[in-house]
């Protein structure tokens, strides 16, 4: 079976984002970009499924600007077999992304689509669920364990009070949570090999999907800064402050 893994190029998670002075968004020009950390976990899981013999091919896809090629090369260096870049200058919302992915699913015919649970830039946590809805497939979101058995995929999901097990008919959608796996580092030889793997570029316009945003960003602002407080010398002093000054205990 084939696995499709959508990956997103985002501001590196170690960078403290800066709000643009005009309040139109967050500064991304000249900022270090990386693969969304949850997408690394998704790629890792797909590659492991292929290594276990549960899958025959792993195809990675990204939607965005030309530089998203770097993100796709990283995924191929981790073990993905080939890549598709849907080229657009927009940064489409999850609804549009899900519609684009649906067209690729129909073209590629994967049995499983593995996504990250959320992207760390827009923090939406929506694309996987939306794609599952559009396709009418089952969804195993916030997955911490995935087993493909007899035409089904069994998924352990992280829920608020613990974990839940669900079983889905293939084809299905999985979204990766933190605990699913530990993504591997791409070795230098694999980075070199990844440069030779096929990368197909499709202009977004060719897919006939309406990418117009439904949400207008009115403004983006810095959250209120917290004032740094004081250091106290002892537990006694701390409890006294909490009781008499902050009045929280």
């Amino acid at each position, binding site marked *: 079976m084939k696995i499709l893994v959508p990956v997103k190029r985002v501001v590196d998670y170690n960078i403290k984002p800066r709000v643009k002075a005009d309040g139109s968004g967050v500064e991304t020009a000249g900022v270090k970009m990386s693969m969304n950390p949850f997408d690394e976990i998704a790629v890792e899981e797909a590659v492991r499924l292929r290594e276990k013999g549960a899958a025959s091919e792993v195809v990675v896809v990204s939607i965005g600007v030309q530089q998203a090629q770097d993100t796709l090369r990283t995924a191929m260096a981790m073990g993905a077999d080939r890549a598709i870049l849907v080229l657009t200058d927009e940064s489409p919302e*999850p609804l549009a992304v899900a519609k684009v992915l649906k067209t690729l699913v129909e073209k590629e015919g994967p049995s499983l689509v593995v996504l990250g649970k959320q992207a760390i830039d827009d923090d939406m946590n929506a694309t996987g669920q939306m794609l599952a809805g559009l396709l009418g497939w089952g969804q195993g979101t916030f997955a911490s364990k995935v087993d493909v058995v007899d035409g089904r995929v069994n998924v352990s999901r992280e829920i608020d009070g613990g974990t839940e097990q669900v079983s889905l008919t293939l084809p299905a959608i999985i979204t990766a949570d933190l605990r699913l796996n530990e993504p591997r580092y791409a070795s230098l030889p694999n980075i070199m090999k990844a440069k030779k793997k096929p990368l197909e570029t499709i202009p977004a316009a060719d897919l006939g999907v309406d990418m117009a945003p439904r949400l207008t960003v009115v403004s983006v602002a810095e959250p209120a800064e917290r004032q740094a407080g004081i250091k106290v010398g002892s537990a006694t002093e701390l409890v006294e402050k909490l009781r008499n000054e902050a009045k929280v205990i």
Partner: protein
Amino acid sequence: MTALVLLDHEGGQIRKAALSAVTAATRLGDVHVLVAGDAALAQAASQIAGVSKVLHAADARYAHELAEPLAALLVSLAGSYDHIVAAAGATGKNVLPRAAALLDVQPIPDVVSIVDAQTFVRPIYAGNALATVRSSDAKKVLTVRSASFDAAPAEGGSAPVEAVAAVDSPDVSRFEAVHLSDSARPDLESARVVVSGGRGMGSEEKFHALDPLADVLGAAVGASRAAVDSGFVPNELQVGQTGKIVAPELYMAFGISGAIQHLAGMKDSRVIVAVNKDPEAPIFQVADYGIVGDLFEVVPQLVEELKK
């Protein structure tokens, strides 16, 4: 205008976070709620102050709040509503985007403030920026952060209960099992006091050093992603961008450096206390009170002082 709130539940109880979603929805208009499960849940839902109608889906296929049937049910009911709302917990985040896609709507997750019926504020980039967004969709599908809205009173309402029939949906998923952590401690997201540990706790065994403190304060226990990744505690205790968002009266961070991903989950707490060996730890930049020292010495001293 009328809003429909999906009330999620756990262990036979309506989750407290869902009561915050009710409060958010009252800002948008009349509030109807949908509860999927047994009759006792529908009865409990009818008591919530501010609710004018309870839609009760009793069919067994909805009992475990699986996304596939529940999203289809929401879509079948959506015609009468301008807003569909749920708490931004595991259920809301699983179900609402699917329903939104079926309605051809872009969902608005993690709303922290409602400007008007079309305009909402939500954090992006791990809470490092607040985006105000206006939706042009005919229906608004949103999840709300419970830490940003007070819980609606669970008593005082007397809404009529109306049964809703099951609708067809793709039969592609089945519930197998659930393992809830048994904890006598308060729920992390609604606790008044949260005591959290990070990588500095050292090990799973040593993490229990926080238990006596949590006991004496009646606090929930939380953890940083580093503590979860190191296997000290289960994932559901994680506070941060990718875990739970909390805003208690008092948040106490032990052995937590204060990475942006953690701060995203707790920096709206009223009072923050940090105990860390490293005087340069970023957590001290947001802490109201800090102690530079060994948490394994400070915690027992705190317990001693609090018992006085």
